[in-house]
């Protein structure tokens, strides 16, 4: 009865961006409409919020973006699979979880609602989540949960909500057209391919494929840690100019036990403490004890990873593993369990990584790719696992 008595209105999730000039990147496109139409619809959807708040948005193409947009079907690596045509059309993460927006490629996306599902209308709604708004129970509001093909502009309820978080348009500091090409973006270099010689040959130590930890952060960059050094990896191998000192860049001294990236966060584990970074920037109040942040998780971990099979977070130490439950803020009941559940994996792993919606495990210069469906190491007749890491991951 309380709920019924409460006036219908917007809802704020609880997190917001600490800046007003945001960038976005369209990481993948739908095949239903042209790229230009997709970009126009996304740009128009951001403009809905830009027009009524102190926010501005700018599209970037190659560099890191605040909000990443992608089209995907079914399970797509965030633990929240899409469900085919109709029903769930899209979902988006709140600012504290990165702000990314995912659209179900199984829908028939269209430029206008009379030809299919309007990408503009759905995108405008999802970007409301990316900015920190939850679902409103004002049915005419853009932030109402059900798709409304007759959308014709923000409702007062939406405007009130966005202005609580980011102020009104008069708060904008400098006019910026979101179609202004980014001045500082370097032209993407042609990829370094295995056939051509990569730049300098990395030091032998780094080329044995052994590393203590490896993680892929939100913008798709993969970092591998070994001792007091770390490497940046790309699709062909190591980026020139590495290794670099973890002390200088990450403010750490000594070896990293494990690393974990989710949303904009990256956690680096050392002994019984955890260092946390948001988009690579050390977070205030860290390092903290692991047990303080992840209750029930031991120190001196072997590895930590987000499993592509269900998007959940796992920790491994010796022959045991833990599953962490963010809503309970502790490891799930019934853990630790024996690592043998993950058939085919050795004990005392070095590292693990979710990369391109698959999960890989590393030890002593070898790696195993995991088959999420069969919950065992993937079978490969041609070149069975484990395989050497130095060639495939480090490009040596």
């Amino acid at each position, binding site marked *: 009865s309380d*709920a*019924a008595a409460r006036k219908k209105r917007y*809802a704020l*999730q*609880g997190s917001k961006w600490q800046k007003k000039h945001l960038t976005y990147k369209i990481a993948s496109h739908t095949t239903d409409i042209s790229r230009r139409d997709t970009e126009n619809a996304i740009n128009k959807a951001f403009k809905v919020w830009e027009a009524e708040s102190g926010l501005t948005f700018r599209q970037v193409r190659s560099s890191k973006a605040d909000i990443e947009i992608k089209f995907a079907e079914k399970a797509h690596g965030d633990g*929240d699979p*899409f469900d085919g045509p*109709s*029903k*769930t*059309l*899209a*979902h*988006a993460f709140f600012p504290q979880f990165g702000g990314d927006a995912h659209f*179900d490629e199984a*829908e028939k996306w269209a430029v206008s609602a009379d030809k299919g*599902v309007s990408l503009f209308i*759905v995108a405008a*709604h*999802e970007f409301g*989540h990316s900015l920190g708004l*939850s*679902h409103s*129970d004002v*049915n005419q509001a853009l932030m109402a*949960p*059900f*798709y409304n093909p007759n959308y014709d502009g923000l409702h007062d309820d939406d405007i009130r909500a966005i202005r609580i978080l980011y102020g009104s348009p008069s708060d904008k500091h400098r006019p910026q057209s979101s179609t202004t090409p980014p001045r500082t973006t370097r032209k993407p270099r042609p990829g370094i391919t295995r056939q051509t010689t990569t730049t300098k040959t990395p030091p032998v130590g780094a080329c044995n494929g052994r590393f203590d930890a490896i993680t892929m952060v939100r913008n798709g960059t993969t970092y591998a840690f070994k001792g007091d050094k770390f490497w940046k990896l790309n699709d062909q191998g190591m980026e020139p100019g590495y290794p670099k000192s973890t002390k200088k860049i990450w403010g750490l001294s000594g070896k990293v036990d494990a690393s974990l990236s989710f949303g904009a966060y990256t956690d680096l584990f050392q002994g019984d403490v955890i260092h946390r970074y948001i988009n690579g920037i050390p977070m205030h109040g860290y390092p903290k004890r692991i047990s303080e942040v992840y209750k029930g998780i031991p120190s001196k971990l072997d590895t930590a990873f987000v499993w592509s099979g269900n998007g959940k977070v796992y920790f491994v130490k010796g022959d045991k593993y833990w599953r962490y439950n963010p*809503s309970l803020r502790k490891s799930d009941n019934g853990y630790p369990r024996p690592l043998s559940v993950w058939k085919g994996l050795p004990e005392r792993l070095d590292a693990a990584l979710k990369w391109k919606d698959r999960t890989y495990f590393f030890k002593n210069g070898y790696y195993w790719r995991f088959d999420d469906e069969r919950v065992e190491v993937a079978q490969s007749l041609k070149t069975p696992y484990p395989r050497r890491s130095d060639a495939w991951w480090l490009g040596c």
Partner: protein
Amino acid sequence: TGAHPAPTQSKGVDFLARFGYIDYNPRLGNIMSQHDLSAAVMNFQRFAGLEQTGQLDHITLEKMDSPRCGNRDVVG
């Protein structure tokens, strides 16, 4: 004393769980009282602008089936 969902009810209960109206976990098989279920349905009906019958009636189930955003309605 408990409600074990019939097929359409099960669909309705899944929807309510998925979008945050109840904490029902089908894998655990916990039992939910009819009162809780009815309260959750009314909360959804109010949220969706439907008549608050507290029943998973045809109109309510139809609304649950319509295209929508995948984010939860009730954020903890």
